[in-house]
């Protein structure tokens, strides 16, 4: 399977007054055609920065891409100029954001916002673009698309707006869709519909999807491959079924255990103690050492950062002897 | 036996009264530009209020022999000694430096009194309207609209004819007009804040409206208020000049920076120093006021020092 996106050793840092924040540290990930790849992590883990830096969407300065490559259809996204990136953004790579309430302009009709990428990237005339817009709304399951095109965002509910955002992202038939917590701001019953819609469209159109989320349950539902990030680094990466059946890294296991739904009532909830480390003063060894309870803390590396190691075919894990369940193969 | 074991390193810092203002003062002192500007402002005030006493010249005595003489001209005093007109003299032969100092007294007072009046009324009024909301807010803001619609000049002429000419009255009149915009700015800010959860939490604690306003709301609108106040100072100084021009403000032989600049502008081609020196005082004061104001705003923002 050829990779649509191949990120190698991406390093992003933010240079602030309080020092250098290493937001993303040597992250590599591959997205195959038609694949859904999840990036899971808590806020501050670097999952969003990873994707935003690919599209040139982090403010520079203070942000700085320190190294790595991101190959996308023969182009290295990290080396493109802003102008070249603009051509890629919104036409070959699209994004959906978390909050459908703020990502639409309240003063413009849904229709004119929806067809904007078409007019911009494909140079369609107004009538043709409008027709494609109606088709796009129909595709994401919005009833009466012709009248809906003429309405303003406030006339849409949250779930409907997210559908519009998805329609807008897919209207140019991109090769890659980056979805940043697309269901977090939605109600549970709507969440499910939106997830189903993304899954369905992805299958029909064969798009590759990068799914950023903090919600393991969502990942479990939609992703083929899961990357778990902690403190700016990948700690584990595997096929979803494999990861959920045999989570190897202590952080992944701790995350799974802390889902309230999986716990018995009456017992205290399992918690990961403490807080994620400050990214401007990262410990020299395993970043999870201070909080880790599922593994053997005493064995954690303290002198150097554990490298990623493939411990089973396609299953990569940060090779910290204290964190990896069942020890490391030698 | 004490239940509270206060770590020794903390003890000096634990002063329950350590307020926003004390913290702000500590932060302000670290802002060298703002501190320097503060010193310049103090210097300007001292020059204007102490300077005329030390000056050998009486700013009201004319000397037609020395009309519009350039900076550095010497003149013999009544006691026979010679003294220098550092900034030259004006079109009636009066010492310009002394006139700038005397004019500064008027201008600085206008700036201070009128801006303070605008601040006090504007912040209290705007915050009350914005926090209470509903019908109270509607009535209070319609009143502001009505005052806005009233022509300012007629308002001042009315006041002066009713109470006679007095500088204090003029300061108050200017302040009474400038607070309108201030109250609108504050109201808009407070409306946003009043819905914040920390204000609801304060209400849940059963705090009185006054405590909520002064402790939780007003400190959070100080940023824009300070910025607007520093913009108000030049506005009121210029307003004073306009009123004086109409014969409603300071009267000759008194002067203010506004009237001096006005005079200077008419004689710009023949005697440029008449414009340059008063304008320089005016600009330096405003410049320092802006930096000091920005410094104060940053110092009051508890997040300012961090990132």
């Amino acid at each position, binding site marked *: 399977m050829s990779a649509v996106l191949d990120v190698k050793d991406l390093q992003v840092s933010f240079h602030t007054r309080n020092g250098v924040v290493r937001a993303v540290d040597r992250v590599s990930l591959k997205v195959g055609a038609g694949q859904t790849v999840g990036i899971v992590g808590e806020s501050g883990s670097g999952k969003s920065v990873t994707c935003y830096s690919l599209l040139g969407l982090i403010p520079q300065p203070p942000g700085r891409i320190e190294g790595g490559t991101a190959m996308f259809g023969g182009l290295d996204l990290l080396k493109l100029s802003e102008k070249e990136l603009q051509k890629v953004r919104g036409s070959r790579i699209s994004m959906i954001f978390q909050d459908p309430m703020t990502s639409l302009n309240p003063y413009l009709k849904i229709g004119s916002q929806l067809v904007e990428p078409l007019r911009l990237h494909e140079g369609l005339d107004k009538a043709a673009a409008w027709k494609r817009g109606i088709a796009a709304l129909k595709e994401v399951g919005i009833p009466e698309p012709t009248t809906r095109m003429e309405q303003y965002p406030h006339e849409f509910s949250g779930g409907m707006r997210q559908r519009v955002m998805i329609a807008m992202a897919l209207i140019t038939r991109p090769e890659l869709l980056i979805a940043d917590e697309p269901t977090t701001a939605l109600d*549970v019953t709507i969440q499910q519909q939106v997830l189903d819609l993304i899954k369905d469209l992805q299958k029909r159109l064969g798009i590759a999807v990068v799914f950023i989320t*903090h*919600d393991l*349950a969502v990942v479990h539902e939609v992703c083929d491959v899961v990357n778990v990030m902690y403190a700016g680094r990948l700690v584990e990466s595997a096929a979803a079924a494999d990861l959920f059946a045999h989570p190897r890294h202590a952080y992944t296991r701790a995350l799974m255990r802390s889902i309230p739904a999986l716990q018995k009532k009456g017992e205290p909830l399992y918690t990961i103690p403490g*807080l994620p480390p400050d990214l401007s003063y990262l410990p020299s060894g395993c970043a999870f050492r201070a909080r880790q309870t599922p593994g053997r803390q005493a064995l954690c590396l303290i002198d150097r950062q554990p490298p990623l190691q493939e411990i089973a075919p396609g299953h990569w894990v940060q090779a910290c002897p204290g964190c990896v369940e069942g020890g490391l193969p030698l | 036996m004490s239940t509270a074991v206060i770590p020794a390193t903390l003890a000096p810092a634990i002063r329950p009264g350590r307020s926003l203002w004390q913290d702000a003062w500590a932060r302000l002192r670290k802002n060298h530009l703002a501190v320097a500007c503060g010193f310049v402002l103090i210097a300007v005030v001292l020059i204007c209020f102490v300077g005329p006493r030390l000056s050998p010249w009486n700013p009201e005595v004319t000397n037609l022999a020395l009309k519009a003489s350039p900076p550095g001209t010497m003149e013999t005093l009544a006691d026979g000694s010679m003294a220098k007109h550092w900034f030259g003299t004006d079109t009636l032969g009066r010492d310009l430096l002394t006139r700038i100092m005397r004019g500064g007294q008027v201008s600085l007072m206008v700036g201070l009194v009128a801006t303070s009046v605008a601040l006090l009324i504007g912040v209290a009024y705007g915050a009350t309207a914005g926090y209470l909301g509903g019908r109270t807010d509607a009535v209070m803001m319609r009143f502001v609209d009505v005052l806005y619609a009233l022509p300012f000049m007629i308002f001042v002429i009315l006041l002066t004819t009713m109470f006679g000419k007095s500088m204090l009255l003029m300061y108050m009149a200017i302040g009474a007009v400038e607070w309108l915009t201030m109250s609108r700015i504050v109201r808009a800010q407070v409306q946003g804040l009043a819905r*914040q959860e920390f204000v609801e939490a304060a209400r849940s604690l059963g705090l009185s409206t006054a405590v909520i306003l002064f402790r939780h709301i007003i400190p959070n609108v100080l940023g824009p208020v300070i910025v607007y106040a520093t913009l108000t100072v030049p506005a009121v100084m210029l307003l004073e000049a306009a009123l004086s021009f109409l014969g409603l403000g300071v009267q000759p032989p008194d002067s203010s920076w506004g009237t001096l600049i006005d005079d200077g502008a008419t004689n710009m081609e023949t005697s440029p120093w008449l414009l340059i020196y008063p304008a320089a005082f005016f600009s330096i004061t405003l410049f320092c006021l802006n930096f000091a104001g920005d410094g104060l705003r940053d110092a009051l923002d508890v997040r300012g020092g961090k990132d």
Partner: protein
Amino acid sequence: MSDFLVIDNASVSFPGRGRAPANLAVDGVSLTLAKGEILGLVGESGCGKSTLSRAIMQLQPLTSGRIILEGQDLSLLDGRQLRAARLNFQMVFQDPYASLNPRLTIFSTLAEAIQARTGKLSGPACWTAVEKLLERVGLDPTAALKYPHEFSGGQRQRIAIARALGPEPRLLIADEPVSALDVSIQSQIINLLLKLSRELQLTMLFVSHDLSVVRYLADRTAVMHRGKIVELGETEALMAAPQHEYSKALLAAAPALRMRH
């Protein structure tokens, strides 16, 4: 009397804009809470659960109905009495970034909450009380000297809980207290709330859209839909066999629950 909090046929309506009809956000809700009970209130955004909690907190006037806390009808109190009564019920808000005054140190925030009940305290007494509160919510006493922006979301939520506990309330309303937090922090806060409610014998109304959290925490659960309570029951029973159509839909949609199979 076993009924600690009685919500009796409470309605809140907001006037419609222009010619739009009035919006009935809370529509004749009746609930009772026994002392020491944790009641979960579940529903989607816009169902009226936040309006109801604000109405109980007397932050939002009722259009009709009554709210009776320990036999005292709160809507009959005048301003001064209400301000005194407020100390008995406190709220933990959803957004830990908006619920703390950014310009007050943690000490000032907590001291204010404590002194709302006790009146002015001397410096050392006040410090002792603040320190005790911080300890209770699992924070270091050094936190008192800092400002809210120096803390992470989870730590702020602990501070917000400490403030709510400051006036020693008997009823705590928690409005989505964990939904803005990361998973690993969520469980810390849930454990804390549970521990506090036992230690202090708090009665708690726990409002959430997250069924898995409510299932874990609440003794009884009420499902709210379009301003009405559509189902009320023992949490375990309700989750195992929901009766109302809407409860069924809500349960079916929760992705976290399906992971168990």
